[in-house]
């Protein structure tokens, strides 16, 4: 055969077949990250003398602020895993707050949660009808739903709340959940924290924040993370749902009812966002009732947290935590502490750079180092961030992180695409 097939001198050698490499499972990475972050924080709080960084209170506040975002993000996850972009989360969240207040002041917190879910789900249903049935562009529909949600709740509260609370923008107070603490663990950790030992006390502070003064809703929200993972990645329903987000035509060809699954996903998404809304008025410390404009864009933040978390439950948990933490920190103790956070960021980046060097990703390492250097310069040159700007710290952090990580992100392949039955090739 070589008579006709002649191998050019150079290209003769046939290159080797590609081999695939095993990589770490996701959860272990997650743990490593958490460890790294806590370490960075405790070192930072030691170096900068800002105990707030790892104080129990900070963590508790972070938790309270993170929960609504977390739930919204979960909502986003469900919808987008099924291929439906959902920036209507904000609107659904608003409807959730309203529903929770309306049911809550009459029948107590648990009913409130259910009502919130129901109201959010209604928003989801509308979104599903528009996007799945009518193939309306997802962002378009989302924007419309945010308008509708805001209008509807305002209208309804003038209609139903004003007579009771004689205030058109506010519901009567809602009975709240009790909070629970893991005793004696909590107190024991408290002692540890008060010992003011580097590292130890910090870890104790963080942990204590997570086991002290937790409301059932918070537990529910945190529980929903693994639940979402199990359902989406370990169940038949979840597999089908995700297949709708990856390649609906293929799913269809295997007898999966794509419309149905997308509907389910988006409705669940709405329900979760709704519960997120409920969290705004049922978690400890916050005002127990509906307030116009209460959500303040948390739906969008939730979406950001989800993207931030690369469309994965653990990731979005991290994203929401970051938001809650950064926000809580700046609210509790203003601009100076925020700079301490910069310090922590520098540490994390530096560690990352080292890791990258070991992975022989020198370029990336260089970039990371550069970033670290820049941040350190800011930390060193600015002693207090102007309050006007520090308020939006979480948003800036998101921007930065996205700018660094965006290319690693892996959205579902058919996310945002219009799907029509019997149209595939």
């Amino acid at each position: 055969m070589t008579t006709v097939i002649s191998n050019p001198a150079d290209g003769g050698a046939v290159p080797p077949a590609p081999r695939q490499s095993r990589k770490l499972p996701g959860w272990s990475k997650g743990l490593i990250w958490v460890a790294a972050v806590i370490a960075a924080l405790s070192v930072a709080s030691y170096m900068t003398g800002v105990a707030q960084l790892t104080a129990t209170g900070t963590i508790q506040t972070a938790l309270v602020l993170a929960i609504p975002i977390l739930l919204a993000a979960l909502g986003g996850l469900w919808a987008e895993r099924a291929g439906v972009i959902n920036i209507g989360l904000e609107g659904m969240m608003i409807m959730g707050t309203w529903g929770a207040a309306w049911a809550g002041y009459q029948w107590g917190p648990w009913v409130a949660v259910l009502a919130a879910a129901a109201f959010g789900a209604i928003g989801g249903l509308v979104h599903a009808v528009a996007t799945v049935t009518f193939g309306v562009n997802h962002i378009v529909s989302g924007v419309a739903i945010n308008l509708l949600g805001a209008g509807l709740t305002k209208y309804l509260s003038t209609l139903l709340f004003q007579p009771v609370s004689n205030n058109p923008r506010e519901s009567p107070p809602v009975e709240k959940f009790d909070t629970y603490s893991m005793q004696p663990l909590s107190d024991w950790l408290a002692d540890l924290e008060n010992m003011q030992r580097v590292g130890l006390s910090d870890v104790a502070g963080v942990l204590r924040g997570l086991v002290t003064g937790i409301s059932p809703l918070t537990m529910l929200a945190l529980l929903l993370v693994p639940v979402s993972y199990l359902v989406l990645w370990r169940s038949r329903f979840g597999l089908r749902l995700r297949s709708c987000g990856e390649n609906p035509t293929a799913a269809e060809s295997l007898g999966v009812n794509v419309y149905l699954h997308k509907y389910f996903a988006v409705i669940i998404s709405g329900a979760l966002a709704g519960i997120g809304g409920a969290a705004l008025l049922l978690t400890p410390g916050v005002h127990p009732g509906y307030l116009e404009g209460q959500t303040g864009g948390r739906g969008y933040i939730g979406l950001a947290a989800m993207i931030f978390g690369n469309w994965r439950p653990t990731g979005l948990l991290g994203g929401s935590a970051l938001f809650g933490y950064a926000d809580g920190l700046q609210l509790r103790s203003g601009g100076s502490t925020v700079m301490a956070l910069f310090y922590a960021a520098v540490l994390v980046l530096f560690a990352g750079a080292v890791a990258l060097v070991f992975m022989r990703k020198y370029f990336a390492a260089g970039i990371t180092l550069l970033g670290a250097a820049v941040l350190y310069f800011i930390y060193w040159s600015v002693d207090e961030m102007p309050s006007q700007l520090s308020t939006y710290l979480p948003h800036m952090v998101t921007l930065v992180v996205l700018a660094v990580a965006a290319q690693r992100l892996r959205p579902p392949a058919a996310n945002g695409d219009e799907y029509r039955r019997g149209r595939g090739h």
Partner: protein
Amino acid sequence: GCAKDSGAPSGGGNASGSECKLAPKPPAAAAGTTSSKAPEKADGSALKVGLAFDIGGRGDASFNDSAAAGVDKAIADLGVKKENVKELSAGPNEAESAKQTRLRQLAADGVNPIIAVGFAYADALKAVAPSFPNTKFAIVDATVEGATNVTPLVFAEEQGSFLSGVIAAYKSKKCNVGFVGGVETPLIQKFEAGYYQGAKAAAPDIKISKKYLTPAGDFTGFQDPAKGNAAAQGMVSGGSDVLYHAAGASGKGVFTAAKAAGVSAIGVDSDQYNQKTVEQEKDVIISSMLKRVDVAVFDYLLAVAKNDLSKMPKVFDFSVGGVGYSTSGGKIDADLQAVLEGYKAQIVSGQIKVSDKPTS
């Protein structure tokens, strides 16, 4: 195991402190310097009163409500006819032209006088008032230069807040108090300024921490109890044990934080101790800085009824009972009241000048 947290406060943060070394008390005030003026009579039955509310309108449990109360009092005392009172309220994020239009609508319907509630109406009034020279306008919280038929109803929040500062200083066990502002606007800064000076006057070495939830322009800060709560918690863990808020609805979050930590709080605008939406936290509300929009509105209507605006005060301050403090809840004992009256007297007499700009 998982134990339910009993309502018992979980201790006021870790930072420690001790009672303030108080400045010498002011001389007791000669009784009755203030607005216990005999109720004057006038017939307002002819008035067609218009109220242009800011966002929220009647029932917002804040200054809109307070203004409404003033009108209600006028209905009761001056015989203003209820059907002659027209109330319109602004929507969020509405355009400037909407405000103008609202005022025009009222004026065109022959409503007179017209009271615009909130400084947001300042520019609108400036534009509209000249075109209705025979209509009497009033605006709460702002002065409109150049418009002769607009009566400003502005308040000395800094004076009221001064006393809040005094109260805080006297009540603080750790000599460490806090202020939570909703949105960092000049108006709210007046509260901060007064509070700061008051606290310092009463306890020169007191520690005062402050936090604004959002910067000027981002008005979500008045509507976000979660953030109010977070900020308050921060202060508590920083050692503050008396919190004063001027944060609108976000203030509810401050109260809940105070209750949770077992520290005291001071309300704002109206007597929040008796406010329905915060009744669960009422026991931590030791006092409220009263901003008597109702008084101002009533006095204004009275003056209009008497057709004599000349005697309207430039600023509603202590001297005319435009600002004050509440004692409901009984946390302000007699001697503290005496002290407060003392400071009040000094402010009225001008011995103490309260600046309305934050020093820091």
